[in-house]
């Protein structure tokens, strides 16, 4: 009898506690959204309002005029397409190379497999600043060697290759952990059927890698889209800049019209937000595949 009473008391206390926690988390979540909502609100009102009547004034008009201006004057569309011209091939190549490495390392027992995997994973974790100066020089020299200074420096190809080289380690690591869960028997039957290495990879293993490939492609698209350092270091021409590094310059140029800048920032954020809301599951599992090992 007293047990039940105690139990009820305990449950009541728990309920009360849960209520407070929920309220706290809800308030916290609202605060979390304020910066983004405020930027969005700023992007919808004209700049003259803020100048004349201050920040908290009732907007004289709400509309997408700033977005139209950002599209016209900031060439946001061009920068956005630059981002995708870089991100899409970079993701495809990263996943292709990563799957090749993961395939060989987990399906064949060469002695150096583990060392290769270690090398790739460690390379992915190095601070990018350590690679910066010599790589930059290398790009210029290779360009001069082929008589085209902008072969790799200030070119999409050069930027894509840097992303591939650095991100490959993570892709290899995630896919090889995943592949360890695929039974060896599948490979053995392929080998007994006399399949070549290429067929073994292409027809047997690659179709099985669909879940990590889906997860990684979502995650890596956002990563490479958001990448900033290499985009400012390796791209000189303004017309070739991806959106993230272009924003750095635009905020200097349009510092006096921050409603316009807000519209630009929202447009830059939109692709990753859309990807996230549509493919949230893939995004989350891409991150956690890497961290919890399969």
């Amino acid at each position: 009898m007293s047990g039940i009473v105690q139990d009820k008391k305990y449950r009541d206390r728990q309920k009360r506690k849960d209520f407070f926690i929920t309220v706290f988390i809800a308030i916290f979540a609202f605060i979390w959204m304020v910066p983004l909502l405020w930027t969005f609100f700023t992007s919808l009102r004209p700049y003259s309002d803020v100048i004349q009547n201050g920040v908290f004034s009732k907007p004289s008009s709400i509309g997408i005029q700033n977005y139209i201006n950002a599209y016209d004057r900031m060439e946001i569309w061009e920068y956005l397409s630059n981002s995708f011209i870089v991100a899409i091939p970079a993701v495809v190549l990263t996943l292709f190379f990563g799957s090749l490495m993961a395939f060989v390392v987990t399906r064949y027992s060469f002695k150096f497999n583990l060392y290769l995997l270690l090398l790739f994973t460690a390379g992915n974790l190095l601070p990018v600043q350590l690679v910066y100066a010599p790589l930059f020089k290398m790009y210029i020299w290779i360009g001069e060697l082929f008589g085209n200074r902008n072969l790799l420096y200030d070119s999409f190809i050069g930027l894509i290759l840097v992303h591939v080289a650095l991100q490959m380690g993570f892709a290899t690591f995630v896919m090889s952990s995943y592949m360890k869960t695929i039974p060896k028997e599948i490979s053995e039957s392929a080998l007994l059927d006399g399949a070549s290495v290429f067929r073994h990879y292409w027809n047997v293993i690659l179709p099985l890698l669909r879940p990590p490939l889906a997860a990684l492609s979502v995650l890596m698209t956002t990563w490479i889209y958001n990448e900033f350092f290499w985009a400012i270091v390796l791209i000189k021409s303004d017309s070739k800049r991806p959106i993230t590094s272009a924003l750095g310059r635009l905020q200097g140029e349009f510092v006096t019209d921050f409603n316009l800048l807000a519209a630009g920032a929202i447009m830059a954020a939109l692709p990753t937000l859309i990807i996230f809301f549509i493919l949230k599951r893939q995004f989350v599992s891409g991150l956690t595949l890497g961290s919890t090992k399969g």
Partner: protein
Amino acid sequence: MTTTAASTKTRRRRAFTRGDKFTLSMFLGVPTFLHVVWVWIPAIATIGLSFTYWNGVSLSNIRWAGLANYDTIFTAAPQFYDALRNNTYWLLWFTFIATPLGVLLAYQIDRKIRGSKIYESVYYIPVVLSLAVIGIIWKFMLGPGGLVQALLGYPEIERAIPIFSNYDINTYVILGIASWRHIGYIMLLYLAGLKSVDPSLREAAAIDGATEWQTFRKVVFPAMKPVNTIIIVITVIESLRAFDLIYIIYGTSTGWPILGMLVFVNIYGQAASMLGAAYAVILFLLSIIPIVFYLRTVFKDDVA
């Protein structure tokens, strides 16, 4: 019977035809070439260059400098100590405030409180934004004419108070902004880990009369060991890698110096200085500990 088994085995061993050997060497060779030439050779070259004087133009200009660059950094570059201090603040803040907050949020949201799916998404949103966008968004909050300025009673742009250049508070401001993203990131990782912890373990602890804190410390936390390691490593590496946000807020003015920025300002532009290479090496040395820690945790089963 034994002969067939033996012949199968030889057949399998001979399975590498010349075509297969070629395929395998391409499969391994192309990615490895790209990775080594693009990442490791430049990394080693930076270490070498940190012991030289070089303006970054032609190779014939390189002069041996011994430890001179490091000597300059340690004795004649006050910025270095500012940067080291800021990176340390960043690390301490992330370790003792942002990361535990992310873990706490994950733990509470995992208990399926009402609307937990919505909260999850809300906290994830900053994780998918680029730091460039995050920097700009927070300038709208804190800069002249920003929401916070108005709330503090300075709604007019001309009367705005300095926040990013106020040395008494800018460290907290920067770290607060960085946490906006980091907390969600940690929460995401931890929540995924928590979902893999057997819920009956917690129920058993609750029935035995364990308090919430005891359950977390004695039951959940130990079960999350691999995720805990990853989170520690991510926290340390992110603190050392910090660059984008500072660049967007301060440009190259080193208004709030960090190591990653000192590398950049010394190398970027017309005349490079190998002080930048030395800064990069220092950054690398600091990163080795978390990298090794990570590799050891992740590849423990493979090595043993």
